[in-house]
């Protein structure tokens, strides 16, 4: 964090209300802050609003919400703490940051649960009203930590509850209602501190609330801003110049919204109706919610009774000629494996999305992990190959769904898309793609006209180029036929159990999926094409890997990185890439699943760097591993 301080300037808020800035501003280029409070304190909302303001201010940013599995875990306890971290910067950033420069803690439990992530001498803002003896005990503090804290952090105590109540005096709200607004006081204060505009939040409030509640929120937001300006507690405030980003129109997007919009976009881009069958599960449910809000896209959403029905109905819809998509998370995804195996056998197109979470079993549903790679590849009985793609950033979730549908319909196959809990809820500024530039394709259903008058329809006669079988949908006269899960005869699709046919169909299914490699762009290496160390990853760890590798390269180390979006089939140049480096390191939030695939396929000594703690990688962890690795090996 580099900084330069300057004298008081004009208004930084977009409002031209003539406010003048009374304090000096310091220019810094990179900040990470975290909001933390009870699940009921509105931390996720506050964080999201600050994120929007920050985006509008033109910074690059990355966020990380972290909340408990309970709806509203017991107030004041460690288990009930909800956090929202945002990292923003005047340059390109890749992660929500390992440590925060500022923590704002609404109660002692929030302080205790988050303190260790504050950088040394970082700022810790607390709601001093919440530091009662009872609350301290509830948080598990044996004594008041504040004195001790001052030695290690810049502690700022603010009587947030009282200030908020005072700001709202005169409005006809109950005290409880008033107290619920205090997060907006804090938001106002932080907007002042980092010279963010508050416009977008005010607009959002106006759209969301009316009457006294609207008034209260606006009032306390502004009061918080004003408090920053006047209080002695903050001698300076900060500007973060806008980042140099590619020209274009941007918005913030989370992985889950991007998946939902990708699904809606797929219908448009393939000019076909979409059917989404799903059963709610954290952290995938929001995709169902978001899609359900947009029936005007002609999409049908079906909340099934369970995951088996979710995937089965989706396959049924695909059979009937629609773009089927189903979404779940690990525990639900594995319940779909039997039906996905049927989809492999009957060769119907379909996209199955798995937003991975931390396990095993119910595990930690709101935490992230990359534990399901082998399960999606190999979790069906017998040889049952499916293409697998993994998204690497929130915005990528949009494009990957489109790509998955393209593959599914071109090759007549179910396709699995992997996301994870971190991507699902994290936000990043996303350059909105030009709709006209998005890939389009047309699906050709089989029709009687393509056949001779007396020929029998052959549901397993393949396109020689793609090995896809024809998609003949009910309602098409003359193509009546039967499909099913029993071993199919090549070409005719009849049921047969002969050995040669069994082998042939196994081979054909494998060959078809392998052939998709022809549509996959070669793996790109970031950094030199060869050298000492390649760090290779997949999915949502991309940001952390990029940041770590870039920093290592800045320090003169011979390190490059690559990330695999297509996990089955692999990009065709993968072997070449791997063998161009002396060493390969593979950081994963699992026990080395991609590493295992690479080792077995290419007999390259890929070293796994594994973390399975329900949390994303910190940049520093990867950087240290790179350093220690290079030291060991040299």
């Amino acid at each position, binding site marked *: 964090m580099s900084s330069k301080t300057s004298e008081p300037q004009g208004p930084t808020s977009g409002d031209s209300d003539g406010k003048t800035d009374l304090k000096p501003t310091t220019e810094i280029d990179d900040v990470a802050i975290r909001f933390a409070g009870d699940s009921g304190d509105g931390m996720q909302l506050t964080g999201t609003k600050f994120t929007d303001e920050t*985006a509008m201010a033109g910074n690059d940013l990355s966020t990380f919400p972290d909340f408990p599995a309970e709806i509203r875990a017991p107030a004041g306890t460690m288990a009930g703490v909800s956090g929202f971290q945002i990292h923003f910067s005047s340059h390109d950033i890749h992660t929500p940051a390992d440590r925060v420069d500022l923590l704002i803690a609404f109660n002692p439990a929030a302080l205790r649960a988050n303190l260790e992530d504050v950088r040394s001498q970082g700022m810790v803002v607390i709601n001093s009203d919440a530091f009662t003896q009872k609350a301290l005990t509830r948080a598990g503090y044996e004594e008041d930590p504040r004195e001790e804290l001052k030695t290690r952090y810049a502690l700022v105590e603010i009587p947030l509850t009282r200030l908020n109540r005072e700001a709202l005096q005169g409005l006809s709200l109950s005290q409880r209602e008033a107290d619920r607004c205090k997060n907006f006081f804090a938001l106002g204060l932080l907007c002042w501190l980092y010279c963010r505009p508050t416009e977008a939040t005010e607009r959002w409030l106006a759209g969301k609330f009316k009457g006294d509640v609207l008034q209260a929120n606006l009032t306390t937001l502004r009061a918080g801003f004003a408090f920053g300006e006047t209080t002695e507690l903050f001698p300076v405030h900060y500007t973060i110049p806008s980042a140099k980003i590619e020209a274009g129109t941007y918005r913030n997007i989370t992985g889950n919204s991007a998946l939902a919009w990708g699904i809606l976009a797929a219908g448009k881009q393939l000019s076909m109706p979409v059917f989404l069958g799903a059963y709610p599960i954290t952290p995938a449910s929001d995709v169902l919610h978001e899609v359900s809000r947009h*029936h005007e*896209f002609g999409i049908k959403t079906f909340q099934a009774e369970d995951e088996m029905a979710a995937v089965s109905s989706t396959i049924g819809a695909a*059979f009937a000629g629609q773009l089927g998509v189903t979404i779940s998370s690990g525990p639900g995804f594995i319940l779909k494996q039997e039906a996905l195996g049927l989809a492999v056998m009957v060769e119907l197109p379909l996209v199955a999305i798995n937003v991975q979470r931390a396990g095993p079993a119910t595990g930690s549903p709101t935490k992230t992990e990359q534990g399901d790679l082998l399960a999606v590849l190999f979790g069906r009985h017998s040889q049952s190959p499916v293409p697998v793609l993994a998204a690497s950033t929130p915005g990528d979730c949009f494009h990957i769904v489109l790509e998955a549908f393209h593959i599914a319909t071109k090759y007549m196959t179910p396709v699995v898309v992997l996301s994870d809990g971190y991507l699902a809820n994290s936000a990043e500024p996303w350059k909105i793609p030009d709709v006209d530039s998005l890939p389009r394709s047309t699906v050709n259903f089989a029709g009687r006209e393509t056949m001779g008058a007396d020929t029998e329809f052959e549901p397993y006669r393949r396109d020689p180029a793609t090995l896809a079988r024809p998609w003949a949908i009910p309602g098409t006269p003359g193509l009546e036929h039967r499909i099913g*899960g029993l071993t199919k005869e090549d070409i005719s699709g009849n049921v047969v159990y002969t050995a040669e046919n069994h082998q042939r169909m196994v081979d054909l299914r494998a060959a078809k999926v392998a052939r998709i490699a022809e549509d996959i762009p070669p793996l790109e290496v970031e950094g030199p094409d060869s050298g000492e160390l390649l760090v290779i990853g997949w999915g949502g760890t991309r940001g952390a890997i990029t940041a770590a590798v870039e920093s290592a390269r800045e320090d003169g180390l011979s390190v490059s990185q690559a990330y695999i979006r297509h996990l089955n089939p692999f990009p065709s140049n993968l072997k070449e890439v791997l063998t161009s480096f002396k060493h390969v390191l593979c950081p994963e939030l699992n026990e080395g699943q991609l590493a295992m695939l690479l080792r077995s396929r290419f007999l390259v000594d890929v070293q796994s760097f594994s973390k399975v703690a329900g949390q994303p990688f910190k940049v520093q962890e990867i950087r240290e591993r790179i350093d220690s690795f290079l030291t060991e090996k040299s």
Partner: protein
Amino acid sequence: MAAEVAPKLTRKDFVADQEVRWCPGCGDYSILANVQRVMPELGVPRENIVFISGIGCSSRFPYYMDTYGFHTIHGRAPAFATGAKAANPNLSVWVVTGDGDGLSIGGNHLLHTIRRNLDIQILLFNNQVYGLTKGQYSPTSALGMRSKSSPQGSIDHPVDPISYALGCGATFVARTIDVDAKHMQQVLKRAHDHKGTSFIEILQNCPVFNDGIWEDVEDRKTRAKNTLVLEHGEPLVFGSEGERKGILMQDGRPQVIDLADDDDPKERGVVIHDEKLETPSYASALATLTRPDFPLPVGVIREVEKTCYEELLEDQIKEAVDQKGAGDLHALLHSGDTWTVS
């Protein structure tokens, strides 16, 4: 609704070219023949007809129908059918399932499909045994049934398919018998005409693993005595000339009385069959009539009206388009806060 332009079809048009692979004497043959006979009379173009099944002997059914067909996985056929019908409401969707497929592993999908009331037909072939896996007792097998997996007799109380369907909120519930061609065809037509999920239990003999369980109602000689043929608006009368009997309800408890041939059953207090009763308690009383004290009711037990899932689903799209206009991807991507970097 499917356009009714197809040339007149015959039974043969519905016979697929696949060899039928059931055991000799299996009740499934007769069901197949009757379904094939009824199809041409429905006025639905053949290409709009879809048979969807799970796994079991019964579930091989779609292979033998020259329509669109999908032999899926064990127990989930109603869910596949839900997707197909919801995707294309023009299709005439028929689910074929067994007592094991439908009521053992598949009970949950039966429940939810029935309550959503999509306009489909569900035919459950009840042979009270798992045929395909070679003779284990099923959820409809009688207590005490000796089978491969219950050599000392089954200790599970059976579930009654009709009561179950009623408990799930079914809008159309009927029962028929594999060998009673005319009756089955009538029931199938009624099921097709019903708007909503039609649930039909078809009593089916499995000569290999459970021979004769339905003999008293399958055998023409004893059928009249042992079945109660339901007709809407007609009294609950059974038996044949000289041995007519009727059914009364006393405080919700059914009771059999003898009728002279010239008795007016209505005057004697015999219940008049009413399929349309809003409360399902009458239907559930019928469902629990058990032999030998009572005859087995066959025919349409209940038919009531409720909205269909697939129609409401289409309505939601229409409503959304009416309110917001057809989905606009560009607008969606630019909704909410955006900013431009130049």
